[in-house]
């Protein structure tokens, strides 16, 4: 991982509730168990990406009890069931732990599978009743990975989601996870999917950010930073990153919603790593001293790495 510069003040990560007032209010409603307020807010969001960000802020704050009390006749029942499914998955991962598969005990596997199967059955019912429930399809993509149902099934779930929510960034991000070698795929499959996105997503589409996520994942999976950086500095990769920037963050039709910081994080990281600090600069300026938890996926000391790369990009005088 990249060495941290000594004496640099680490920049703390910001959660969406720190960045958006309405999400802070949403979280407070969830803490109070005010389901009607939570459901009304979530129901008013326009895209699946905003919904996914907002849901993540309430899932751990709501209790099963609050969600189970929503009657089946209530229009928000499907959403409540979806969040119940997500919580069940999270409990399953809590039992398994996030370590290597080889360190998971038989009992942990059993508990993990039991929870994921139960969540899946809740979500099968949700998507059967309402195939447009994109957030349930998204969670089914994640379950598909957890219980190893295979790439073709993951792709089917992505396709079902995409019929009603084309080019959602979060769906592409999770498919790219599935397509990597660590989940039985290959970097060729990741590249094929990225090419497909570039061909099919309209300019300005937030879904194109999944392509750059794929490049960062490739970097993160390399044996060491030197190898990862070399892969990113391949001229074709550099060209593709610029091409994605042209049709997303640099494009007038780009509407990132709650993914604003995520989008600029990706380009700030990538342009810095390929050594193009000038290209990284506008993204650090856009971030205005904030960073999302994404950095901790790729850097040992994310706060310090961020500060260091930001200073390289902006220089002492241009600090934004």
């Amino acid at each position: 991982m990249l060495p941290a510069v000594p004496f640099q003040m680490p920049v703390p990560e910001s959660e969406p509730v720190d960045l958006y007032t309405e999400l802070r209010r949403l979280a407070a409603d969830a803490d109070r168990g005010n389901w009607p307020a939570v459901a009304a807010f979530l129901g008013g969001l326009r895209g699946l990406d905003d919904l996914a960000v907002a849901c993540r802020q309430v899932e751990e704050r709501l209790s099963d009890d609050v969600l189970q009390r929503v009657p089946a006749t209530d229009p928000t029942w499907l959403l409540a069931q979806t969040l119940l499914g997500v919580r069940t998955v999270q409990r399953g991962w809590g039992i398994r732990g996030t370590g290597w598969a080889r360190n998971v005990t038989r009992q942990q596997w059993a508990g993990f599978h039991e929870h994921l199967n139960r969540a899946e059955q809740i979500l099968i019912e949700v998507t059967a009743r309402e195939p447009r429930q994109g957030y349930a399809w998204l969670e089914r993509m994640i379950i598909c990975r957890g219980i190893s149902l295979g790439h073709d099934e993951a792709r089917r779930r992505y396709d079902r989601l995409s019929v009603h929510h084309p080019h959602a960034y979060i769906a592409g991000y999770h498919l790219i996870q599935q397509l990597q070698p660590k989940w039985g795929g290959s970097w060729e499959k990741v590249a094929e999917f990225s090419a497909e996105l570039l061909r099919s997503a309209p300019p300005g589409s937030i879904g194109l950010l999944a392509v750059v996520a794929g490049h960062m994942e490739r970097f993160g999976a390399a044996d060491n930073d030197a190898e990862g950086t070399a892969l990113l500095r391949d001229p074709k990769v550099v060209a593709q990153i610029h091409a994605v920037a042209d049709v997303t963050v640099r494009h007038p039709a780009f509407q990132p919603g709650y993914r604003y910081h995520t989008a600029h994080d990706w380009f700030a990281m990538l342009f810095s790593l390929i050594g193009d600090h000038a290209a990284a600069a506008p993204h650090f300026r856009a971030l205005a001293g904030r960073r999302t938890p994404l950095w901790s996926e790729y850097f040992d000391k994310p706060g310090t790495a961020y500060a260091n790369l930001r200073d390289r990009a902006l220089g002492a005088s241009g600090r934004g």
Partner: protein
Amino acid sequence: MLHRTEVDGVPTLLAPGSGPMTAGLTFRVGLADEGAARIGITHLVEHLALHRHGVADYHYNGATGSVVTHFHMQGSESDIVTYLEMVCDSLANLPVQRLETEKAILRTEAAGRGGVNRMLPMWRYGAQHYGLVSYPEWGIDRLGPDDVQSWANAWFTRANAVLWISGDRVPPGLRLRLPAGTLRPVPVASTMLPATPAYFTGAGGGVVFDGIMRRHPAGSVFALMLERELFRSLRQESGLSYAASASYDPRGDGFAVVTAFADALPEKQGAVVGGFVDVLAGFRVGRITQTDLDAVRAKRDEALRHPDAHAGRLPGLAADLLTGARLRTLDQLRGQLYAVTLADVHDAALQVLGSGLLQVPPGSRADWAGFAAAPTTSTDAVPGHTYRALDGSGASLVLGADGVSIVEGECRATVRYRSCAVVHAWPDGARQLIGLDGIAVLVEPALFAAPADTTARIDRSVHPSIILPMPARRPDDIPRPSPAPTTGAFPSSTGPVPRTVGVLPPGGEFPPATGRFPPFTGLFRPAAGAFPPAAREFGA
């Protein structure tokens, strides 16, 4: 439009048809009546009965199903008289000199038997009654002239038959010389599935499903809607399947089986399982529309309005009459069809899905979708003497007063003598016992330090009529204990594969093994609507 009369004491159905006259004689006997040790005997009788009618210009045939056997022919009135009288006379006096030749013909035909849903009955019912359609016709080898003639005398009788004719009259001079007999009830179904919906891992190529419901006109509507939705979802929308089909088939006992199938490319098998499960879930939650119902109803109505609909229903009506179902006219049927509501279809779907059995391709599971793994092993072992495998594999053979078990680790396969369906007996002493539940135990005495009289004890403990002698195995095919453990007696259906003793494909007819296993391979032939002839026995 449907007239009933009688010919020589045989109930007779008449309905007009537009083409040449077709007539048939249907008997209430089929595979489900045979017992595991005699599988194939009805088919053999059917072949023998038709042998004398070996004239090429007639359009005649026979068909052995699960609970009925048909003989039918198309032609002039006098052709039909000749044919039916010949069938009856042959049944009374089978040309048993043809026995070995007809056995050879049946063995050749066996290669073409079976549809995509071939294995589901074994998993649902075991090696008995409605499950026997899953098994090879291994009973025929041992049958002698007396066996087939007494089978014919017992089942092919006047009281157990219905004559049906597409035409307005019985051909003049027709006589049906059949023994008196009695009308035989259909077997009582019993399931081997401790929990449903259930699943098992079968051959590749696609996903197959069936479920049971009370016989009701909504069942055929549900099957048509299911087929339409599988096709729309898996083929048109997702491009995962080429063929998708569903059918509704009365079982003969007041219940009906809804069967569905979708094929899959090798690289799409997991997605077809997922897509199939989601289609079923859509019906379970009642996501069905009046538009879909109206569309399939119109299609069904069109079929019922076809000029030959009356005549085409005759074999099914004969089966209905023989199994005590109410006969309905086409007008009544159409009336019922238009009375079917969305709620009726949903109720049919809930019955079928609740009792469902899903066959998934190798490498797939369905536990995640709420399907319980169908049992591949027994729940316990018999008490008795335990003999360890000589090859150090850790497997044990248990010989008890009540039966035999093979135990390895947590896996047990047990056949109790009182519920043993069939024993395959090799001259070298090997025995394969198959229980009524479909679980098999292969006893290779040479592989265990078992007493010398093991084979004799097994043979003494079961009824002699269920022991099927097998041809001698080549010396190389007879397993011998070796220092290195062999593999594979317990098959992998779901979960991890335990390692145990007892591999031997003797002569390659079927792979004997222990546990529940498909008794033969290569029968998965996906094709559009490729259900076996055993289906379609009934009218509705």
